[in-house]
Structure formats: C-alpha cells, structure tokens
C-alpha cells in the first residue's frame, strides 16, 4: 500500500525554452565521467527535432529492473532506478532491452549509466528549459514480463 504513495522525480523538458547549447549534456557527463564532453557520455541527450529540440532521457519506469541478472539495478528510496556499477557485470541486457534506449553505454567503460535525477542538468540550463517534476511510481511503472506470444 505504501508503494502507491511513493513518488519519483523525473525530468520534464520545455523545448520552447531550449537554445540547443547542450549545457545540460556537459553537466551530466561531468557527473558520470568527470568530463564536460557531453554527447555519448551524457545520460540526457538533446536532439534536433525539426526546428525545435527534443529530450531523450530515462523516465524511471524501471522496465530494466527485472532484466539484471546480478541485481545491480534497484529502485532507490527516493524512487529513482539506480545502477550500481560495482555489482554490474556489463552484460548490456538493460541497454538492449530499454524500450526507449535511455540506458546508455559509453565507450569509456563496460558498465552502462543512466539518469539519476540529480538535477545537474536543470541547474546548468541557462534558459530553464529543464525541470524535475514529481510523479507517482505506481502511475509509471510497468510489469515487464512478456506474455506468451504476441499479445
């Protein structure tokens, strides 16, 4: 019952405010790889979408949780889906199975990485195009197991 009340912070994007300068990506790669390269080393990606931009990032639904053979993926107390890279054995199952491609893999190391809703990108954006909003986990989480056949 407690689960029903549990919430998690996820990123919300306001494309109309984005100028495509990718300060968010640089801040993110700083968090994960201590570099401001952004790009492949950032968990958040801002992509051109016609004349505008779109955000590509983990939405904390947790479809990957049941994929991990060693239990390196867990939902933390604050609701976010967390990859413990000391436990991770680099199999890429979560990377391959993420339906939106938000579990990322950089060439820098074998273990993948993902958005942890830390807010570094939100703070880095000069235009306020990103914000963290709170949603109920129960509303977003999904049961992963494939039903038999194509149902």
């Amino acid at each position: 019952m407690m689960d029903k009340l549990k919430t998690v912070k996820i990123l919300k994007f306001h494309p109309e405010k984005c100028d495509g300068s990718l300060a968010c990506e640089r801040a993110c790669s700083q968090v994960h790889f201590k570099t401001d390269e952004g790009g492949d080393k950032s968990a958040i990606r801002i992509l051109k979408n016609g004349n505008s931009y779109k955000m590509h990032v983990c939405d904390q639904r947790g479809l990957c949780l049941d994929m991990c053979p060693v239990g390196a993926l867990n939902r933390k107390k604050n609701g976010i889906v967390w990859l413990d890279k000391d436990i991770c054995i680099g199999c890429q199952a979560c990377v391959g199975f993420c339906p939106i491609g938000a579990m990322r893999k950089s060439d820098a190391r074998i273990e993948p990485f993902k958005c942890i809703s830390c807010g570094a990108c939100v703070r880095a954006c000069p235009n306020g195009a990103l914000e963290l909003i709170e949603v109920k986990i129960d509303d977003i989480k999904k049961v992963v197991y494939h039903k038999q056949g194509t149902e």
Partner: protein
Amino acid sequence: MAEGQIPIEEYETGNTKHKWDLKKLKFAHRVIFEYNYKKGEIKRGYANRTLYLNLTKKEIKEKPVTEDMKKKFTGGRGFGLKLMWASIKSSTRWNSDENELLITTGPLCGTTQYPGSGKSLCLTISPSTDIICDSNVGGFFGPYLKFAGFDAIEIQGKAKQDVVIVVDGEKGKISVETAPLEETNSHLINEQLTHMYASENTDKSRQKVSVVSAGKGAEHSYWGCLNFSFYDIRRKLPRMKQAGRGGLGTVLRDKKIKAIVTKIEKFDGVSNNPADPIALAKVGTKLHREIRDLDRHQCNMRAVGTVHLVEIMDEYDLLPTENYRFGSFPKASKIYSPKFFKHFTKIIPDGCWHGCTMACAKTVDGFTVMTGPYKGQKTTVDGPEYETVACCSNMSLWDPLWVLEFNFYCDTYGLDTISTGTAIAFYMEMYEYGILNKERCDGLELCFGNGEAVMEFMHRIAQGNKGEFTKIAAKGARRVKDWLIKNAWGTPQLIEDCGMESKGLEYSEYVTKESLAMQGGYGLTLKGPQHDEAWLIFMDMVNNAIPTFEDKAEALHYFPMWRTWFGLNGLCKLPWNDVEPANNAETDEPSKVPEHTQNYVEYQNAITGWNVDKEELILQSERCYNWQRAMNVWLGRGRRKDDWIPYRSMGPVTEMEYLSRKDRYDKQLVEKLGHSEKEVEKMKIKEKIELLYDYRQAQYQKLADAVYYRRGWTPNGIPTPQKMKQLGMDDPKMLKLLQDKINEDEKAGLNVWGGKYGKGEKPPNIHLKYWEKW
C-alpha cells in the same frame, strides 16, 4: 507468483526451505591432497593453462596452453580432445583408471555481453558408446573455472572414497577433500556446497560459487548426467543445467567424485580481457535488441523456452510418440507450451549465464513432488525443455505434472532425461508386444502411459536395486537389445529396428522417418544420435531445399562444422538461429543466418584480437571434428558399420505404423519406387513394408557415401591422412594410425562405396582412393 519489479529480497518461491548443519558437514571433510597456484590473468579469452588432477596418484599440476594448441584446437571441446589424446589409450573404457573427465571452457566463454556465452564442454569415454562423448552445458562453472585461472580441468584416476574437488579462485588453491556426509542427489548437494563454500552469508557471495554433481541415479546407470549449478539471487537457490548425454555423471561417480566446486573472488564485464571491448559491447547489444523486438514473434524463448517446439513438432508429424512409432498424437495438445507457461515462474532473467537475454532456462517453483523420497516436498524444477517433454510424449505421458515429476527426478538423480526417456519408451513398446512383461520387468507394469511405473523404475535405479531388469535396463537400450536377443525373447530384427539407439547412445527427440538428411544428421555423427550436429528436417522435408545426395552431403558437412564451432568457444547454439534478423528470409542463405554468422566473426575477433573470417570459423571446427572422428577410429569405432541407425528412424517398422500413414507410404511406392497404383493396391502391407525397407536402407548408404566423400573421408568413413594434413593437423602418431586403419580396410575389402548404384546413378567418385592424389 512474483511478477515484475519486486525487490530481489522479496521474491518468494514457495519452495521447502532446507536447514543444513553446515559446520558438521564441513567438519567431516579431510583434505587428502591440495595444491596452491598463482592466480593469473585472463588474456584475450584464455587463461593460458589447464588444470590436471589425478585422483589415484594424488597429483595436481598445471599444463600450459601454447599458441600452437590455440591455433589447432581453438579451445573448449578442442582442448578436451587434445588433452585426452595425450592421456588415454586406445583400450581405455569408461571405467578404466586412465579415463578422464574433462570440463573445458573456450575463449569466448564467460563473456557477458553476447547472449549464450557461458557454456562448458564436458568430455569423457562414454559407458554407452565406448568412444568420446562431448556435452555442452550451461551454468556458472565454466566461466568461473576460467576466471579462477584455468581453461579446462582434466581429471584422471579414481578416489577411494567420496570426495569433493574445490577450485578456490579466491585463495588460489585446489583441494581434494573427503565428503562423507553430504547428500548425493544434486538438488540437495548443490545447495549444501554452495552455502558451505560461499565466502559470506549473502546471495551475492553464493552467486560466486558453482557446483557440478551427479545424483544417485548416475551411480547405478549409464545415463548419468552432470548437473551444473548457477545460483539464482531471486529464487535464492542454486538452479542447474545438465550435461546430459553419454554418461558423464556415471564417470563422475565412478571416480568417486561427489562434486566439483569452483568459486571466484570477483568478475566483471571485461574479465576475459577482450582485445576490443567496444566492438564486443556493440555486437552484443545489437543481439539483445533483436531478441527484445523479435523473440515474441518468433520462438518465444523468453516466455516458454524450448517448449515452444512441442506444438510445432506435433503439427509436422515430428513429435516422437510411443517410441517414435508416430510423429503426432491426438492427446499431444495437453503438453503444448501454454500448459507449461501456466506453471512457469514469470520473472526475469532466466539465462543460465549472465547476460543471456534469450533466457530459455525456465523453471517451475514450488512444485509438489508426487512420488519417491521427496514426496510432498516443494521444490524448483529446472525446465522442462522440449526434449524432456518429448520424452514424455514418447512414453505416452500426457500430464504436465508427470512431465515435471519425471524432469525433477531425472535431474536430481543425475539421469539424462533424453536417454532415460528414449530407452524407457523402447522398453514400453517391447512390453506392448509381450517381449517384455511384468515378470521380466521385475514386477513393473511398464506399459505406455504408466507414469507411476516409470517413476518407480527410476527410484529403483537410484536405490541401486539388484533386480535383473533394473540393472540391465539402467544401462540403456543397446544392452537391453542384447539381453532380449540373448534370451530369445522376440525376433532380433524387430528388437534391433525398434530400439532407438545408434553407437549405443539413445536418440534425442525427433522423428526422422521422412527426412533422409536428418537420418544422416543422427547417424553420421561423432558421439551418437544427437541433434547438436545438424537439424535439417525443415530444410529437407518441409522446404525440399536439399533434394540431391550432394546437397544433403553439403548440409551434413557445413552444419555439423558450424555447430561444432560453438563447442570450441564455450557458446550456446540457440542465439544463432533461434532468433533471426527480421530480414533473414531475404538473404542468400537463410538457413545459415548470415548476419549472425558475421556477428560471431566479429565476436571472436573482438575477444581474441585475431583477424578471422567466416571460412576460418569452419576450418577451426573441421580440424577438431576430424580429430575426434580419428580418435573414434583409434578407439575401434568410427567407420561405416558404426554409423548404423535403427530402421525405426528411417521408416515404418510395424504394420500399425504403416497403416497410420498409409496414404503417404503408398504414394511413395508409386512416386519413388516406380510401382503402379494398381500394383500397390494389390500388395499386402507386409510386402509394402519390405519394399520401403530396402529402398530406404539403400538411400541411407548412398547418403553416407556422399557425406564421407564431402568430408574427405574414405568410403568406409575414415578421415584420411591427406585431409588431416590439409587441415594442418600433422600429429605423426595420428597420421600413421589412420594410414594403418585404411590399409586394414583395404585388405578386408571394406574400402568400397556402400550404396548400390543402378543405371544413371553414380557414386560420389569412381576412384575409391580419390584422396591419394591430393
């Protein structure tokens, strides 16, 4: 049952919880001998040494892996063959002191990025066949053995009392310890030893231990399998996979080994130290995505594992029922995959090695055992897989619960489900004909469909029952044939035709009557009738894609070589063609799955740093395949006469079988044998059966001719020294032995084609010594 996003700690299986006095068990251990070794590093997939133990001489040593050895034998099963060649004699039999049990890994084994990369390859001289049997098995043992420092473990000699062998990769120590108090049956001993040897009392620590064992059944039969454990952190118990075929577990127990344990300190995604981890992750992720998107529309492995085959085989008349008499059965829908899906625990992941997203290793948790020593207990059943279900169909058992019961006891007793099921199905048919009866079966009513009698028979095997039938029947179909014939019970030809064994090994579960190529896929094999060399039924029978002898021979060259390759590298075959790229059907050679073949080229290069192409992969296999055939020749088998198959696998043995598919057979008498419809109408069934019999036997011999020729063997099936040299296998002792055997055949007049060629037909080559000009 738990389904989706449950924290790992909270999974509940409903199994009986065991409490062990581990201190007492451990206290009873006495170290007999031990060996400290320097922990090494894996370089590009190789530990670069193998481990040798001699239980008789109490000796442990390391053997180096040379570059030459890698070049010729690649790894895995290839290494096993090389090591055996150096250690056994041509007179070695399964229970000889010098017989070896080998567990090998392979350079790609232990990779986590590419699905199906945790296989161990086990080899020994089989009690069933007297030649080498190799078996490919999942579980954590192989990868852990390598990460503990060894590409293979080679065990020779016998202990005087029950021992466990511990390869401790944490401390760098091998020890052989007495183990008097542990259970023998696998589901229990695997649990005991996993808990005993885990460094800490946590699931993560237990996941770093893997156990190989065989149960009580393996002690008293020729069907002993090896159970390889893999600890499941969700179910909180060691599950297991079986190295089933050929009696490896029988050899383990003959050596008085209760279990082999390996543990590691740590491992991660690059423990193989691949040459190119980036390329490796890319090719692996590509396959993960394919499985994600396509599996549910193709094989549905992630939901039901290999059981999805049951309904397909039934539909195509290939599901063996009542000892392969029929290929489909009205009751078969009772054991279709949805019936098992209902029982399977629906949590992910179910791979038998980390990172295998094909995840075919399904389980039923909380199954209540119905008979025998564990009656009433709740347990996890690993499986069933297709073969096990089809064994039950072969015994005419149509209740999923009896399938689970059979599966559970086969596993924990260490009995190979395939051999056990196929052999019992044969006994049941003999029972139906009165050749066996209650009295001759030690009081068992072993008729088709009697699940209770099947289980009672298995319990008796495990107890070491001394009844004449139990003792002989536990040695398999071949020995029972001999026994029946010796007692003059039934006609020898009927007995030989019905019992589905070749080379002494029982068949696996496909009806091959209408596919000549698949008859060769079972008969023209190294270890015996097992579908791991080739599965050509659809290609041959359904799609008619390989109509000529030459076509079939090409398929019986390529596919056995290709599939051998998985065993050289420590891989599983399933991710190759049990999921296919969406555009596979449009490629030049869909049956080879060209894109996946290319994946494997990239994969091997990414690990080893080599620069091979797909032709080189086949060459790697051809070297080892021919080497193994040559060793079979050395061991006294491996010629045309040894590639004999029972007629049940070729065509209808009995009138009932003929009548059950009368239209089909009548049509063949017209279309293939050239009789007129009127003639056929007048013929008696017996006559028609005989005509088909002669025709199909002759076809098989012609197929063997074509295949031997394609493989570069003599007309009697011996690999030629010229072929071996071409492949770079220049061991002088082996070349000489082959030449000697060929000379022997020459003298005995055996160096001739087996088929009788009529007008307009010709043998593969008019020169019987065609290879001498190479």
